[in-house]
């Protein structure tokens, strides 16, 4: 006997139909009635219940319930597409709908969308441009093969208790490192020669400061490929030179010049040099931008190469294990063996520091760097600005999106009632923010194209459109755009999608205190960032102004420098030339000097004798200068006399006030110097006022000015012009020059211009900070404008009631602005200490710097106030002046 339960089987079958989304209850009932009719008939025919049920099932529903549901969907003609249970549930499939809704929402609130998109576009555009700049600055020297295994050796020298780490090291350092340490695969030495060198062919004559001498192993370390010549042997012989392609083109009009001869003059007497190689111009991203390499043996005598005090930049390349730690660990032993015997007799010591090649450009410059450096601090500041800017834009979006919550609450309520899940709503809100970000991204690219040229002019980045549109940059655009879209959309999505339909649809919804506090917090953050930026701009601007206008201790205006021609037969004419110039009207004087005034000069150790206290080893910057030098440059003689031609100036020197102060030489007459060899008798004849060598923000060093009136090849003639008619005076000087140095151009430079060029990087930074600061403020104002427009909208009725009750426009203005002003004062309280700390960090880069002043930090407050007043003003006045009846009638 079968124990089949027909009722249970039918109930179970029915249950399976209930699970089918497309089968309505009435339909299932009808199908059940039909099945029962069939079963009845089969039972009457004498079948067992189980067989009757199975047969009825087979006849009635030969297909599964899903197919029946599909058929019904077709019949009911609901939608032309697939039935809901067949639709794909992935986000992408719903995207078109989300995009449609997002577009509608953007369209509904055009002003709001434009503010957000505009602000975001500016932030994205500037961020990517900053990113490109930071990448550019960080990519120095990375193009060299095995760049990660190359290190520059720093000579960390301490002489007379003064520690002066130097970029160049003694000649034997490189060879000794290779000989002692198996980790060192090779070394290379290179030295920049002279401030000016002349290369001459029949076709062309040019002066270049980018000529270096390099030893035979230099090209083993640096992978400079040759386009012509043999790089293995190019620097082996004396009087050989390797040229860059552009230099070869300039000099010969072609680049296939190996084997030809060139006339060189500069630090060495004029000589012919054989060209042994040509290399393609170096990538501009290198700290060592040489244009020509002269062989080491041309410049150095064999005895020089054993001299630990004759210096060159020394680079080492490690073996494949690249274990710099192991090399560093052995340096104490190296120091005892090699460096102490050299430096201890001089009363000092030296150590070696290994600086990774790719870090050199952004590291703090050591003394004697061949070229100016970039600044890691500046890049960090710029990167921080980029992050701030993006954060500000996200904050703006979050603020405006959550402020619209009243607007969106009803929408969320209805959608939830109609069956939307929270996740669907979140996706919809995030789609809105991403869509907005995408619009902003496109606008940002267009904006970048427009400002690419001016931006290049400020930063020196000469980006072509092709370079700008390379995949890398576009990827960053895409990444930032999506990132900003997602980040800024996330909080509003969580916040808005959490509304309970029961509450919002009953009209009981009010902006939550939590949301209100969050928005206040975000605005506070924006204000604080703006305050920090305004203070930052003021600090950078003040410091830049300070160093540019700071007294350098000599009369830089009207002071010219002209190098003595490299023609030995005419050198002696320098003295009569100066004599004649001195007699001209409007001329302060003329003098010789071997040290350019715009270059820093590190201290050297001199053994001086002060009668009262005996011998002293003094760390002094030393310069060789000729007669009437002090008068010429417009410094002052504090005590004693200048190198006056009325006196015999042989074996005399001057010291400056800093030296007197540091070493207590109050009686300058008691100061003597036995010369470099210790067998001469030099006398101090006066004390000169302090003046700067190099940047005005460098500390003024104790200095000794040694008399030398010999017009050697390194010397320059300085002429101080006090006359207002500069052009006329220069023309007069030229006449004398042409007479004394026929065939040599009167190639003068204004010292003031040379000094100005030193501040170019500071000015660039100021320009950038200024530009970015203005943009940050703009983005903040956009945020505030957005917020105030929503606030006034929310408070329309309140304003109307207040007006009806007799409040004045002024009172209402106060009411609306108060919260922003309070926030701003709070922000200033937070921002000022932060900006103080940040600006101290930056200012510590300068030996001579502006002092802390409250006004630079507190001035940010009224500026922010003004901007807020402008942003708040319009909406407040509009709200305060509106007809209260209209607002009240809206209910």
């Amino acid at each position, binding site marked *: 006997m079968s124990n089949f339960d027909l009722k249970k089987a039918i109930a179970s079958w029915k249950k399976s139909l209930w699970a089918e989304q497309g089968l309505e209850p009435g339909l299932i009932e009808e199908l059940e009635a039909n099945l029962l009719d069939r079963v009845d008939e089969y039972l009457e025919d004498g079948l067992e219940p189980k067989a009757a049920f199975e047969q009825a099932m087979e006849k009635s529903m*030969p297909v599964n319930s899903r*197919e029946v549901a599909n058929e019904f969907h077709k019949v009911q003609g609901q939608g032309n597409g697939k039935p809901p249970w067949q639709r794909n549930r992935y986000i992408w499939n719903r995207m078109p709908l989300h995009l449609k809704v997002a577009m509608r929402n953007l369209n509904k609130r055009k002003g709001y969308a434009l503010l957000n998109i505009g602000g975001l576009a500016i932030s994205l555009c500037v961020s990517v441009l900053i990113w490109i700049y930071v990448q550019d600055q960080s990519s120095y020297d990375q193009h060299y093969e095995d760049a990660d295994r190359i290190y520059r050796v720093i000579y960390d020298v301490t002489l007379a208790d003064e520690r002066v780490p130097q970029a160049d090291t003694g000649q034997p350092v490189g060879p000794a490192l290779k000989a002692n340490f198996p980790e060192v695969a090779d070394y290379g030495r290179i030295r920049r020669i002279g401030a000016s060198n002349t290369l001459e062919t029949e076709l062309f004559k040019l002066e270049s400061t980018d000529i270096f001498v390099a030893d035979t192993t230099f090209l083993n370390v640096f992978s400079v490929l040759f386009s012509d010549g043999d790089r293995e042997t190019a620097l082996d012989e004396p009087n050989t030179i390797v040229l860059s392609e552009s230099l070869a083109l300039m000099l010969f009009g072609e680049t296939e010049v190996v084997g030809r001869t060139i006339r060189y003059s500069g630090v060495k007497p004029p000589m012919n040099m054989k060209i042994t190689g040509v290399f393609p111009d170096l990538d501009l991203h290198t700290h060592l931008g040489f244009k020509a390499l002269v062989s080491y043996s041309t410049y150095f005598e064999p005895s020089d190469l054993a001299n630990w005090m004759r210096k060159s930049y020394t680079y080492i390349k490690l073996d494949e294990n690249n274990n710099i730690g192991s090399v560093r660990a052995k340096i104490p032993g190296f120091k005892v063996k090699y460096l102490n015997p050299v430096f201890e007799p001089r009363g000092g010591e030296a150590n070696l520091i290994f600086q990774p090649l790719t870090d050199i450009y952004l590291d703090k410059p050591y003394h004697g760097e061949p070229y100016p450096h970039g600044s890691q601090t500046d890049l960090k500041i710029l990167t921080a600005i980029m992050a701030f800017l993006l954060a500000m834009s996200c904050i703006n979006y979050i603020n405006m999106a959550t402020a619209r919550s009243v607007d969106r609450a009803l929408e969320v309520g209805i959608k939830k009632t109609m069956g939307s899940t929270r996740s669907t709503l979140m996706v919809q809100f995030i789609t809105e923010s991403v869509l907005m970000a995408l619009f902003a991204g496109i606008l940002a690219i267009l904006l970048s194209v427009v400002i690419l040229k001016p931006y290049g002019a400020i930063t020196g980045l000469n980006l072509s459109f092709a370079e700008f549109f390379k995949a890398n940059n576009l990827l960053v655009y895409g990444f930032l755009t999506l990132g900003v879209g997602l980040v800024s959309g996330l909080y509003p999505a969580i916040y808005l999608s959490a509304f309970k339909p029961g509450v919002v649809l009953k009209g009981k919804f009010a902006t939550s205190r939590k949301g209100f506090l969050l928005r206040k917090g975000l605005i506070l953050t924006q204000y604080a960032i703006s305050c920090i930026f305004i203070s930052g701009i003021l600090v950078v601007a003040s410091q830049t102004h300070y160093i540019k206008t700071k007294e350098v201790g000599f009369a830089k205006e009207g002071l010219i420098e002209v190098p003595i021609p490299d023609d030995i037969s005419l050198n002696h004419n320098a003295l009569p030339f100066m004599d004649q110039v001195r007699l001209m009207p409007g001329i302060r004087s003329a003098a010789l000097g071997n040290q350019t005034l715009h270059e820093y000069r590190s201290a050297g150790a001199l053994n001086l004798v002060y009668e009262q206290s005996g011998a002293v080893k003094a760390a002094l910057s030393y310069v060789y200068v000729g007669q009437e030098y002090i008068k010429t440059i417009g410094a002052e003689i504090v005590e004693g006399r200048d190198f006056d031609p009325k006196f015999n100036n042989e074996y005399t020197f001057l010291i400056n006030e800093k030296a007197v102060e540091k070493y207590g030489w109050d009686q300058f007459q008691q100061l003597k110097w036995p010369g470099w060899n210790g067998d001469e008798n030099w006398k101090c004849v006066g004390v000169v006022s302090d003046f700067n060598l190099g940047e005005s923000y460098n500390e003024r060093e104790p200095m000794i000015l040694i008399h030398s009136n010999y017009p050697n090849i390194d010397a320059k003639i300085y002429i101080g012009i006090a006359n207002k008619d500069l052009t006329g005076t220069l023309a007069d000087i030229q006449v004398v020059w042409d007479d004394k140095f026929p065939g040599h151009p009167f190639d003068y430079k204004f010292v003031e211009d040379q000094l100005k060029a030193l501040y170019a990087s500071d000015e660039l930074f100021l320009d950038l900070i200024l530009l970015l600061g203005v943009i940050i403020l703009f983005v903040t104002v956009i945020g505030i404008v957005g917020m105030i427009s929503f606030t006034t909208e929310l408070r329309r009725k309140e304003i109307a009631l207040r007006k009806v009750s007799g409040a004045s426009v002024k009172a209402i203005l106060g009411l609306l602005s108060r919260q922003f002003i309070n926030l701003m004062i709070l922000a200033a309280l937070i921002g000022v200490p932060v900006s103080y700390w940040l600006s101290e960090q930056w200012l510590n880069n300068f030996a001579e710097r502006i002092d802390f002043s409250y006004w630079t930090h507190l001035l940010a407050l009224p500026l922010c106030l003004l901007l807020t007043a402008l942003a708040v003003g319009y909406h407040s006045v509009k709200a305060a002046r509106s007809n209260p009846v209209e607002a009240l009638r809206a209910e």
Partner: protein
Amino acid sequence: MAYKTLVAASSKPLILSLLSHSKSYGYQIIKNVEVLSKGELSWTDAMLYPVLHRMEKDGLIQSEWVVLESGRKRKYYTITQLGREAQAETRSAWLNVNHALELLWNGSPQLELG
């Protein structure tokens, strides 16, 4: 396939014609069609009910639930006026087709040849 299409095309005229005689319910319709076609047309519920619902939606037939003595419920369908008109239309169309085929297969059709 061709037969399947014919079955599908004939379902509407068959239902209308059956209901023009008297009201009926799903299983009865299936049984009657089976008998009339000598077992050739064996409709399933999955095929019938969507058609019935479509015709009801189009206003050709209407339905009502009837509670039987046994307590079971059954849904009866009746033809509407619109349904009768539709039935008349489909009838003449089917007759025309039937006449043409009848002549071609069994009679002496006057055909233009050559």
